């Protein structure tokens, strides 16, 4: 099964702080995704990428930047964190163009913005 790891697993920051969430997948998937999960809203797509250097905007991108440095690594950046960004963040990967349309999720990062 696909392996997706995330770091840190938990993060606390203050309003206005700078946060970087990391995601790595080791299965040569071309697509990677960042989601946030909030009660009542389910999983919402922030950004996604189909390869190194590529970035696509998701459904809730405001306040977030992302960067895909390699096929394996995808980062989510919150440059001026706000309390509304307190959430559980999941990274996922898939390879739909290669026949693997299932998305495999990482363990999640719980972010608290005070």
């Amino acid at each position, binding site marked *: 099964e696909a392996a997706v790891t995330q770091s840190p697993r938990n993060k606390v920051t203050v309003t206005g702080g700078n946060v970087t969430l990391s995601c790595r997948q080791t299965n040569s998937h071309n*697509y990677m*995704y960042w989601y946030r999960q909030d009660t*009542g*809203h*389910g*999983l*919402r*797509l922030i950004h*996604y990428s*189909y390869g190194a250097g590529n970035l*696509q905007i*998701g459904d809730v991108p405001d306040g977030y930047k992302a960067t895909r440095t390699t096929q394996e690594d995808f980062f989510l950046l919150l440059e001026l964190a706000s309390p509304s960004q307190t959430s559980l963040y*999941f990274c996922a990967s*898939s390879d*739909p*163009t290669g026949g693997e*349309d*299932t*998305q*495999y*999720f*990482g*363990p*999640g990062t719980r972010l608290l913005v005070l």
Partner: protein
Amino acid sequence: GDSVTQTEGLVTLTEGLPVMLNCTYQTIYSNPFLFWYVQHLNESPRLLLKSFTDNKRTEHQGFHATLHKSSSSFHLQKSSAQLSDSALYYCALSSSSGSWQLIFGSGTQLTVMP
């Protein structure tokens, strides 16, 4: 745009009773892919089952679902609920539009009581 509707936010059942979680979708594309993901407490979402074939029953781990394009539905069923089925269930749509995004419903929290 594409959307997925899960009408029940919370479902509580007694062990042994049948499970049915509703999922309907909207898309302009004629060949959608439909997925059910399950998320147990303190875990990440994982694929339960998926389908892109009209009127064909798909089964996995005792659960089954049939994609009905005529009614734009992909309901999840199980004949007899178990305590271990308690989890958050997401229905998701991929419209094969080339973006390879998954559109998730808001989720249904299933609680199975003894």
